[in-house]
């Protein structure tokens, strides 16, 4: 476990060094979505029980936690494997693959959670009052763990920085918009909606929204997110294992 502390120590140190930059970079797109879709277009739109802002803020938090947790690990890990080669320093050290995966994921979790916190603060400025309880933060944490683990996996498997940004464009960006973040999935054709319901971000948006606006604890979606988190994390550990065999 001391290896875990070492890996996390570095992530925390770097995050502290550029906290303001990370906060600003992580919150610029959610704040833009909030302004354009929520404040601009959605001011006069009502969705079911409440106004549109209540609907999209949990969705925006969901996509924020995904993008920041994922990119906060995947991109630096990719660079450290292919360009700076600093990843070698971890591989020669007596640190287990489990601790390495967990320590690197922690960096992504931290970035995901800080960016989500910024969105929450901004939503308060928009005078949107969400129902926040312990389940909300548990969901947020498990989600960031899932996407950070996915980031470790991608960082270990994807072979170049170009492919990394292609992955962002072809997987993360469509997921950000389509996973029930900005609109109800019922509006989509059934086959497409069914496919989207298999994606992890859909369940994060559903779970956060049902806690924050409907005050219902979404056990099923939470279970799905936890399952994704476990699968991604095991795959991440496995990908480091495989990398060492070469």
């Amino acid at each position, binding site marked *: 476990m001391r290896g875990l502390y070492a890996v996390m120590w570095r992530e925390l140190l*770097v995050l502290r060094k550029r906290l303001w930059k990370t906060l600003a970079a992580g919150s610029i797109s959610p704040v833009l979505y909030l302004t354009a879709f929520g404040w601009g277009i959605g001011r006069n739109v009502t969705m079911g029980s409440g106004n549109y802002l209540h609907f999209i803020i949990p969705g925006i938090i969901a996509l924020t936690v995904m993008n920041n947790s994922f990119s906060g690990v995947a991109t630096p890990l990719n660079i450290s494997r292919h360009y700076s*080669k600093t990843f070698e*320093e*971890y591989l020669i050290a007596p640190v287990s693959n489990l601790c390495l995966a967990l320590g690197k994921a922690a960096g992504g979790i931290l970035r995901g959670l800080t960016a989500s916190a910024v969105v929450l603060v901004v939503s308060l400025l928009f005078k949107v009052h969400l129902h926040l309880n312990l389940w909300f933060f548990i969901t947020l944490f498990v989600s960031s763990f899932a996407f950070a683990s996915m980031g470790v996996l991608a960082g270990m498997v994807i072979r170049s920085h170009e492919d990394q940004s292609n992955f962002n464009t072809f997987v993360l960006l469509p997921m950000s918009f389509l996973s029930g973040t900005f609109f109800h999935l019922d509006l989509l054709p059934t086959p497409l909606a069914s496919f989207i319901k298999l994606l992890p971000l859909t369940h994060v948006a559903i779970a956060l929204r049902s806690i924050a606006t409907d005050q219902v604890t979404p056990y099923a979606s939470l279970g799905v997110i936890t399952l994704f988190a476990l699968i991604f994390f095991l795959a991440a550990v496995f990908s480091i294992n495989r990398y*060492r065999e070469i």
Partner: protein
Amino acid sequence: MIKITGVTKRYGKIVAVNNLDLHIEKGEFFGLLGPNGAGKTTLIKILTTLSRPDSGTLTINGHDVTKDLVHVKASVGLVPQHTNLDMELTVWENLELHGLLFGLPKKERRQTIEELLTFTELTEHRQRLAGSLSGGMKRRLLIARALLHRPRLLFLDEPTIGLDPYTRRKIWDLLKSMNNAGLTILLTTHYIEEAAALCNRVALIDHGSIVALGSPSELKNMIGSYVVVYDDQGVTRYNFFSDREAAVDFARQITQNVTIRETNLEDVFLRLTSHPVAE
């Protein structure tokens, strides 16, 4: 200290290391010399657990390199070819991270960092970001980092590549003093004068196999202690002789410009490996 027996490593169809045997004793300053792509870096990667051999056995102090990872990792230090310092961290933070990764207790860690900063003359640069250091300082920091967990064996992969002659000699002095203090050192290089200046034993490696092994003077004697170099219609010819008289006799017959000199390690290299070192 190091026992390598029948080690082979393939990358697809390319055989990087080919059924290689090598023993290195404690306290040696050993040089692996060979052209680009000869398999030097692959061998270092296998010895530092970064890569696994396809077959063969390697032991360090009697511990199997592919099985007893924790013990092997604790007893070897690596100065890689590529400057893989964390450029976002300072000199001190790079060392602290290494100490934490190797699980050194705080007191010992801090004390050893101070000693190594002094040893590598980096004390006054401790707060600078690694990215802002000069090439020579980066190399010294890499060496300090590799020594932090007090390994008994140090691997250096092209330690002075891209450094000016003054800085290179400074690194040489550093390495020599470490070897004198009892550290076993294995370095790869294609700077031949580096191997000649530092190593008590050298292996010439080509296409993944050792083609010659011995002290620099033994290697020179292997091909002949004297060489006659002359120009044959634009092509430089080398003829090797075991004694001076034979070389002089031969040189008398040459009508073109001719040089007689003692053999150096570069001659051995050019004679025994398939292509020139400077491609």
